[in-house]
């Protein structure tokens, strides 16, 4: 495994949370080297809004939310700042109609590009077109294999 840091996308984070054995092994190896996982604030938002919406529906997910917050506190969370917004706008403008709907993925890809770190994803279909946008430096890594 490369010693360089990587950004986990939302799917990889979900697979880790579901206990995907290969992702878990790769994450463990990474954590032994880097100490913390790196994720986007967008991935944190996606999960938190799910918990909050579920709680509003009366689902008893307080402990699940607490565990996620504890997990998130151990991560390096990269923000969506002005540079990420600018990069995301460039990516969005180059995508087709279907690609443009994937606002979360675009912001996550832009975050990885701005930081110059590879994105860990199993979703090459959606992210590959973003790697071909001029000026965008986005490398894809798959922890599922």
């Amino acid at each position: 495994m490369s010693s360089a840091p990587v950004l986990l996308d939302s799917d990889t984070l979900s697979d880790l949370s579901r206990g995907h054995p290969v992702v878990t092994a790769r994450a463990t190896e990474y954590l032994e080297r880097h100490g913390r996982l790196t994720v986007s604030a967008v991935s944190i938002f996606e999960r938190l809004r799910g918990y909050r919406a579920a709680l509003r529906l009366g689902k008893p997910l307080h402990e699940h939310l607490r565990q996620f917050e504890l997990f998130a506190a151990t991560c390096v969370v990269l923000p969506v700042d002005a540079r990420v917004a600018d990069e995301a706008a460039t990516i969005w403008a180059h995508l087709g109609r279907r690609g443009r709907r994937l606002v979360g993925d675009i912001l996550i890809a832009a975050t990885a590009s701005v930081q110059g770190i590879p994105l860990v994803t199993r979703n090459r279909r959606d992210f590959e077109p973003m790697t071909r946008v001029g000026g965008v430096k986005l490398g894809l890594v798959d922890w599922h294999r």
Partner: protein
Amino acid sequence: MNLVMLTARRRAEGAIARTIRFPRRLRERIAADAERCGRSFEAHVIAVLRRHYGEDVDIAPAPSVIIARARASLSGLGRAERRMLTRHLVEGDGG
């Protein structure tokens, strides 16, 4: 002991974790100082580093702890609930 230093720049680059081994005599001196200050060994090492360098030093939990927390965030949930919690942000997403 895995110590992680997180300055603003390093947050962007990713944290660096290193295992620190202390010679026995130094470990005993730190432990004595920690006890005098009412801190754990780890908390005292962090306090010393923070005071000396003025940086946001932290202790990274063990990989097994981090992964256990991730798993606990979805454990025991049905497919519909998991899908609700892991849905992606897409344009036109009204809930």
